[in-house]
């Protein structure tokens, strides 16, 4: 089945220690999104890629970076995690403008990040 995969599902890191979260997709979608969901809150968009074009949200902290080396993979790098960065990080994809259903997003299971 075509899907969105996130690894690891659970990540524990120390305050200030860089961490990388991974997302891969077998849907061949043009667009990949990263959302942050803190406990009991709605998911909040951090940034997205349309193909290789990176689009950062205005209020995304500089501490958060992303890489997309190819269509299938996208990474979220947190350079110096703080306690406030503990959250669920969700990756999503969509097919882009030419897709049959460009408006729909498909979510991965998320990575729960704990910062000690």
């Amino acid at each position, binding site marked *: 089945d075509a899907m969105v995969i996130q690894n690891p599902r659970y990540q524990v890191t120390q305050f200030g220690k860089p961490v990388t979260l991974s997302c891969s997709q077998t849907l061949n979608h043009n667009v990949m999104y990263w959302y942050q969901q803190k406990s*009991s809150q709605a*998911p909040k*968009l951090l940034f997205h890629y349309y193909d290789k074009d990176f*689009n950062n949200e205005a209020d995304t902290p500089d501490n958060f970076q992303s890489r997309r080396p190819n269509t299938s993979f996208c990474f979220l790098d947190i350079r110096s995690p703080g306690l406030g960065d503990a959250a669920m990080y969700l990756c*999503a994809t969509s097919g882009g403008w030419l897709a049959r259903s*460009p*408006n729909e997003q498909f979510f991965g*299971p*998320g990575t729960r990040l704990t910062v000690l």
Partner: protein
Amino acid sequence: AQSVSQHNHHVILSEAASLELGCNYSYGGTVNLFWYVQYPGQHLQLLLKYFSGDPLVKGIKGFEAEFIKSKFSFNLRKPSVQWSDTAEYFCAVNRNTGRRALTFGSGTRLQVQP
């Protein structure tokens, strides 16, 4: 920028009761509307979606939603809830153009008591 309001933050129902969760959005242009469900400890799952056409949409697990353009609303309904419907429900919108990123409401926690 669009925004989404979910006025019910926490709803408690008994099994077999009817459910209606409110969702209002603010955006003057064409939007797409979604309801997602998040069961405890699980990831977001799409319940239903509205892009165009019949404003009454049916989703999975007996859920339906009605788009009322004049009221900027997309309320979620289910005639008879089950204990297994206990979850967090998120309304979301995106625009029909551009980056199509989702804007989520703050969520409604539904607790169904046996």
